């Protein structure tokens, strides 16, 4: 069933557009469907044109993602006044019909996906050919399917439809990960098994909710939950949801699939999967906790908040300590992802508007940083270097531009102001302080030291050490097409940091659930 779903979705969306086509010119209310159209077209076009000529797969993907990014940005701009656009698939009214909803939060996550997707595609045009030759077409086709699945997850307002998109993105994600190192097949298989368990847990949660409320539309479910607060079945559904989504977002201790999967996948696959896949799961968790179940009940009354917060903090510490112990660059970055997802988990579990702001800002922020860092490991390998950090000595001089991007992203990870990494932690810390969580606050602040430990270790080798005899060294600087996304994303962390107040006030403040207001933002 899941394999057919892109076709189904395309059909439904096309039907929807046709239904509205009486107006001929699409207007703002069609945006949720319009954003998906380029991706749906791409699902067919990329493999077809790729069969004709391999290079066409890349060019088509690039054009499609550029259109997609432009539409996503338009979508974000349209809903920035705090409004939401609801689009009824094929004209069926909810709760029976499937609804796509573009609100500031979903538009924000969509833009994150689109921008990272576009930049990684630019990189992939130069890299995939060399990294996984002969599989270019498959790579680009799978990537478009995955982005379609993720965008659907972000926009759908229907719980079961979300599961369908969930599987679309996961299956294509597994396939993308399996392309790469010899061991990638095994690690991707493990991810497939665990991911399926996660998806099943989510589906079980949906089942309970459906039994309780008789509805699958998120807003409708939320409205009907009011008098069910004491019902144990509701608590069970929430626990299933948190477990399932926690597994997909690699929330400690459900992260065990992540290090191997990221390490053995090809660098380009990791650079697109690592930044967006776990983040979209985190987004869905925010959706469920704050918009469906309601934060007061789920986080405070049921007590999910403190449990998730402490597990997330455990992930921060565990991921950072493991990252310190790694000698392989990609493995270090993979463990670092476990830690960084922990920050997002911490922010969404605290239930304070400032902490949630930090978590949402960190979604974009970590997407940019981690994408940069994985792309740099790819550049080093593709230029003839190795992933072993011991061989990274002196690379700063050999690949100066590449490592400008790496340094910026690394400093953002450590949280040096004025990079964006500092500010997402700043909001998190303010939220923790304001809600009196002193222990978590101190741990949050001190965790920056561990991050500094594993990144300065690399920076020292890159800039201040001479390569030893017989080290595997890259021939020279990566190509311009590979450096452009690296530098753009690295500079992005700096710009996002400098203009974070504008961004938070303009975008994230609108994206917060009703009832949570940022102090100092009108």
């Amino acid at each position, binding site marked *: 069933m899941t394999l057919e779903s892109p076709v189904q979705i395309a059909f439904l969306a096309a039907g929807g557009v046709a239904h509205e086509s009486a107006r001929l010119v699409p207007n703002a209310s069609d945006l949720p469907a319009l954003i998906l159209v380029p991706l749906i077209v791409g699902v067919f076009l990329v493999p077809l044109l790729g069969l004709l000529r391999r290079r066409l797969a890349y060019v088509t993907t690039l054009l499609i993602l550029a259109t997609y990014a432009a539409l996503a940005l338009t979508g974000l701009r349209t809903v920035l006044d705090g409004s939401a656009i609801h689009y009824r698939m094929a004209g069926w009214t909810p709760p029976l019909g499937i609804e796509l909803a573009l609100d500031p939060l979903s538009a924000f996550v969509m833009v994150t996906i689109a921008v990272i997707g576009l930049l990684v595609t630019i990189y992939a045009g130069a890299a995939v050919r060399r990294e996984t030759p002969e599989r270019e077409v498959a790579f680009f086709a799978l990537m478009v399917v995955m982005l379609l699945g993720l965008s659907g997850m972000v926009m759908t307002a229907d719980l079961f439809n979300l599961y369908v998109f969930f599987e679309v993105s996961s299956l294509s994600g597994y396939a993308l990960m399996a392309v790469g190192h010899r061991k990638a097949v095994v690690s991707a298989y493990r991810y497939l098994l665990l991911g399926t368990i996660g998806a099943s847990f989510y589906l079980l949660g949906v089942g309970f909710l459906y039994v309780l409320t008789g509805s699958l539309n998120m807003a409708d479910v939320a409205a009907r939950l009011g008098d069910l607060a004491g019902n144990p079945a509701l608590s069970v559904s929430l626990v299933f949801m948190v477990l399932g989504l926690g597994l997909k977002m690699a929330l400690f201790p459900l992260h065990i699939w992540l290090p191997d999967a990221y390490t053995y996948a090809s660098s380009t696959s990791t650079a697109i999967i690592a930044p967006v896949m776990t983040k979209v799961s985190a987004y869905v968790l925010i959706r469920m906790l704050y918009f469906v179940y309601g934060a007061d009940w789920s986080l405070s009354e049921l007590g999910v908040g403190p449990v998730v917060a402490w597990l997330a903090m455990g992930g921060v510490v565990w991921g950072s300590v493991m990252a310190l112990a790694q000698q392989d660059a990609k493995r270090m970055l993979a463990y670092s992802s476990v830690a960084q997802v922990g920050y997002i988990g911490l922010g969404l579990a605290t239930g304070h508007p400032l902490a949630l702001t930090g978590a949402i800002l960190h979604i974009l922020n970590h997407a940019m940083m981690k994408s940069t860092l994985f792309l740099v490991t790819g550049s080093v390998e593709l230029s003839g270097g190795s992933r072993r950090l011991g061989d990274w000595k002196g690379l700063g001089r050999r690949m100066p531009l590449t490592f400008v991007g790496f340094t910026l992203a690394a400093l953002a990870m450590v949280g*040096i102001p004025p990079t964006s990494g500092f500010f997402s932690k700043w909001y998190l810390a*303010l939220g923790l*302080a*304001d809600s009196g969580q002193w222990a978590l606050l101190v741990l949050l602040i001190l965790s920056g*030291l561990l991050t500094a430990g594993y990144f300065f270790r690399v920076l020292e080798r890159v*800039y201040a050490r001479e390569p030893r005899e017989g080290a595997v060294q890259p021939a020279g600087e990566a190509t311009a097409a590979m450096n452009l996304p690296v530098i753009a994303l690295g500079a992005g962390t700096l710009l996002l940091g400098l203009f974070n107040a504008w961004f938070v006030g303009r975008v994230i403040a609108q994206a917060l659930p009703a009832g949570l207001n940022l102090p*100092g933002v009108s």
Partner: protein
Amino acid sequence: METVTHFESLRPLWAVLVSLLAIPLILLSGERRPNLRESWTLLAAFVKAGLVWSLLPDVLDGRVAVTSLGTIVPGVELALRVDTLGLVFGLVASTLWVLTSFYSIGYVRGAGEHKQTRYFASFALCLSSTIGIAFAANLVTFLIFFELLSLATYPLVIHKETPKAIDAARKYLSYVLPAGLMLVLAIVMTATISSQQGLDFVPGGFLERTDASAPLLRWLFLFYILGVGVKAGIMPLHSWLPAAMAAPTPVSALLHAVAVVKAGVFGVLRVTGYVFGPELLQEIGVWTALAWAAGITLTVASLLAMRQDNLKRRLAYSTVGHLSYIVLGAALLSLASWKGAILHLIFHATMKITLFFCAGAIYVRTHRENISEMVGIGRQMPVTMAAFAIGSLGLAGVPGINGWISKWNLAAGTLQADEPVFLMLLVLSGVLNAAYFFPIVHQAFFRSSDEYPRFGEASPLMVVPLALTAVVSLVLGLVPNLGAHAWDLASKAAVAVIGGGS
């Protein structure tokens, strides 16, 4: 109290930015065109100093230049504000950067250092951060530049890339990064406590207007002191500083005797005088703890200095001691002690940079770092060692040189605060200063050695700056108000914080 007016001006912003803008020019000029590259440094240094000096008449007339760069986090602006204390630090750092730039060129070329482009670019970034610290109008702006300074100094400490330099750089990071995080923690707590009052520096402090409890404020004060105290070298947070002497000497001279460490004590002054304020510190009673930490540091550091044979290490321990003079002055919360502290911030800079310049000149000419190998050096490098003698006499507190004036005020401050025990520590430390400096001067001039060939003075690029700083130390000792109005500025800032009466 005299009235203070604010006016919008872009000069503070340009003063920060000018060296930042020089960085791409320095990088583009690269190793192939060293003269062009160094001219960017010199140009930036002169423009920066000019801009800072142009703010002096305004400050003396009670007009405060303000640049607001918009909101950096909701409720807090990224803003620069040139008040009296900030101007003092800005003047010291920017003026000495001009001299250090000339000296640097002589040093790195004389010593044949590698990666000079990275060196000059990092130096420029350090100075931008320092002026940013000096002019920061609130805690968040301060924090951003403070962290940036920590980071920009790292490439300079690791510059030589020898195992020793790499160890020193690791040690440096393992001290300043936790400190930075402590400062973040303190500022986050302050932002939570003071959500109504904002985070702007206010002479006399703003925390007393909040309803925070005394135990919480004591913890907060501890976090602040841990945050800024590492750069200020308060024991036991000091040991990165002697290790950081692995850096090239101009770095030790400007950053590890002036900009970085003074940013630490400047932070102490801001926290005690502009965040907590004297009344609140009296009330919660933490000032004695800080005063004792400083008192112990300035004594123990002087004792440790005597045991160092490496000249730069001896100077480093001496710096640790003298920084605590300033911290002590800030902690005693009396009018004279504050005036003495601010004067010492200026005067210690001119004296200690002279001494480091001398150490560097000796190293470039003779490749010697140990004091025991410098017997008779005064006859071969008379100007250098005469400057060294002036600097060391001043630091020991001999009248006629500027160190005497600041120490005198600090001493008067201990009495104003009714804490004569610290007066005894100051006197003891003065004697110890003499004990670890005078033998160097004595053996340089009055003992001869035929062991070494004749060396002669270092290049004029190095000798002229060190002679100038020595002359400045001497002149300010006789006419402390000449030029920069150091005396007036220190009085004004002290009155603003402590109030005219007490």
